[in-house]
């Protein structure tokens, strides 16, 4: 029994052991502490990624969790994205980050374990605990920024509203339980014509939209992104979003496959359309780079949500493609921004002026990631958005694709605004050096490579499956 569970949970257990090893590393003092931190993270995460490929498929822990081939791929993506963000952390410049290196890595790895469990959870108790495991470290991380007053404000906001959103999740679990008499997702009778099931879905969607920063629940996102240390942003902007949307994909699988309850599907579609539309409108006015990037995640999450209401037998590959390009473009972008001189107050767009003349490689890779996020052809983002628009057209007609098209149009405006600042001929207005270490160079090259490869031939992802 125990050995059986262990074989399923081995990647997560390795990560938990790694996180405790990092915690132990933080309380002892010796010479090569940072080196030990880097080595442990590299070995532990690669080992965990290796064992994900080896884990058997099926249910475990009284069918609370499930491993399928698709959850394995999504977990692998999560692990790879976190590896890139963690290597960014262990390469940080500021003293505060250097002092609390092990604690930061510990928190991120615990959050990663939560994300991996969210993806494979098939029952409400497992889901609630995994969502908490995913989000509690993020509350702490957002409070550890460089500007204390700002980051404490952001962390307090995120903490209070995050706790409230978890209350909604528990309430929706109670309502689903009152209908089906079981906490398993399989037992939910979606065809039931009752208002309670719609109410329960709305409560669940409220939690989901808070955690992914979908439109009506997006208020925390700009403050948190501005206040959190920039090394954390690649993690903060990808892992929670992707793991929770992947969970939603499996949760609504039974509903969407046979179109059992059109009202709930309509609510999800409505949520995604308003977050695409209003999210795009919110970004236009922003002049602060971090706030702009924070708000620009809202339409992306909305487009991912559209992929959910298409039957997963069709949409799974395309959503995984979207996840892949989103992770690599985001991580690459934030790594590039981290190479710039540290800006504590107001990271305005004009701080990027003349970057092309100072460092062409950095400028070109930033534009590559931005174009990919906007959805320009020849980059991964184009195929991600195009495929989701296509399958949503086949399933529900012309309305959803036109919403996606509108968001793409607006997103070209605000992403090109950043690119215009980069290629501006004015002098680069910071005297400090651009910190361009080897690890950062490698990460950026990997991300650019994957973004362009996905743009040229997105079918390359099929090798994974």
């Amino acid at each position: 029994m125990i050995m059986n569970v262990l074989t399923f949970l081995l990647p997560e257990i390795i990560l938990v052991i790694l996180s405790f090893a990092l915690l132990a590393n933080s309380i002892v003092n010796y010479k090569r502490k940072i080196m030990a931190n880097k080595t442990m993270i590299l070995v532990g995460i690669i080992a965990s990624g290796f064992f994900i490929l080896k884990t058997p498929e099926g249910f475990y822990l009284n069918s609370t969790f499930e491993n399928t081939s698709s959850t394995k791929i999504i977990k692998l993506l999560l692990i790879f994205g976190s590896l890139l963000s963690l290597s960014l952390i262990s390469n940080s410049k500021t003293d505060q980050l250097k002092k609390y290196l092990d604690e930061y890595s510990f928190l991120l790895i615990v959050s990663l374990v939560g994300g991996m469990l969210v993806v494979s959870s098939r029952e409400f108790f497992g889901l609630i605990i995994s969502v908490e495991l995913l989000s509690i470290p993020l509350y702490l991380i957002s409070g550890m920024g460089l500007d204390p007053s700002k980051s404490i404000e952001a962390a307090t906001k995120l903490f209070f509203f995050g706790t409230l959103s978890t209350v909604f999740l528990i309430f929706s679990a109670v309502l689903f339980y009152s209908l089906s008499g079981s906490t398993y997702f399989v037992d939910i009778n979606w065809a039931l014509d009752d208002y309670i099931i719609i109410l329960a879905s709305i409560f669940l969607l409220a939690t989901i939209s808070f955690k992914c920063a979908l439109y009506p629940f997006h208020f925390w996102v700009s403050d948190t992104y501005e206040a959190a240390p920039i090394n954390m942003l690649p993690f903060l902007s990808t892992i929670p979003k992707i793991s929770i949307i992947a969970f939603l994909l499996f949760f609504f699988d039974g509903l969407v496959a046979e179109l059992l309850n059109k009202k709930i599907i309509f609510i999800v579609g409505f949520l995604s359309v308003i977050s695409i539309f209003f999210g795009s409108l919110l970004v236009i006015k922003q002049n602060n780079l971090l706030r702009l990037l924070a708000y620009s995640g809202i339409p992306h999450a909305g487009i991912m949500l559209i992929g959910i209401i298409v039957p997963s037998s069709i949409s799974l590959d395309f959503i995984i493609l979207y996840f892949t390009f989103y992770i690599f473009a985001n991580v690459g972008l934030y790594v590039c921004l981290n190479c710039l001189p540290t800006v504590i107050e107001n990271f305005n767009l004009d701080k990027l002026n003349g970057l092309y003349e100072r460092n062409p490689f950095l400028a070109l890779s930033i534009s590559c990631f931005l174009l990919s996020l906007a959805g320009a052809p020849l980059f991964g983002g184009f195929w991600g958005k195009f495929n989701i628009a296509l399958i949503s057209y086949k399933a529900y007609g012309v309305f959803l694709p036109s919403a996606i098209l509108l968001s793409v149009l607006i997103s070209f405006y605000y992403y090109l605004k950043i690119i215009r600042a980069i290629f501006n001929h004015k002098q680069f207005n910071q005297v400090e050096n651009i910190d361009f270490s080897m690890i950062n160079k490698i990460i950026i090259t990997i991300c650019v490579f994957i973004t362009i490869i996905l743009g040229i031939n997105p079918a390359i992802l099929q090798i994974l499956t």
Partner: protein
Amino acid sequence: MQYSYFLMVFLVIVGIPLFMILISKGARFVINRKRNVSDSIYECGEPSIESSWKQIPVSYFKIALIFILFDIEIVFIFPWILSLGNSSELSYLSFITFIIILFIGWIYAYKKGYLKWEM
């Protein structure tokens, strides 16, 4: 079925306006009178020395947080002990894991000096 649904609607219809009224207009209904004795910390004849609005050292909160950790540990240990007779090896091992995790947290707090009174 319909009845339970009605209760929920009733809660929403009554609860939300009541909540909004209490939040927005609540301050008006408080009788504004001069408070001397009834406002003091200890209103039993003894004249009080300071006001209750004073800063408390952060050490209290740190100790309280760590206390809560072990309090919750006891809450979890107690039912486990009661059902120890008919438990499997899985429950035993998972509980040992739980205690080890808390123990690591305790060692971390101890080594970082969070259990000291002065910081």
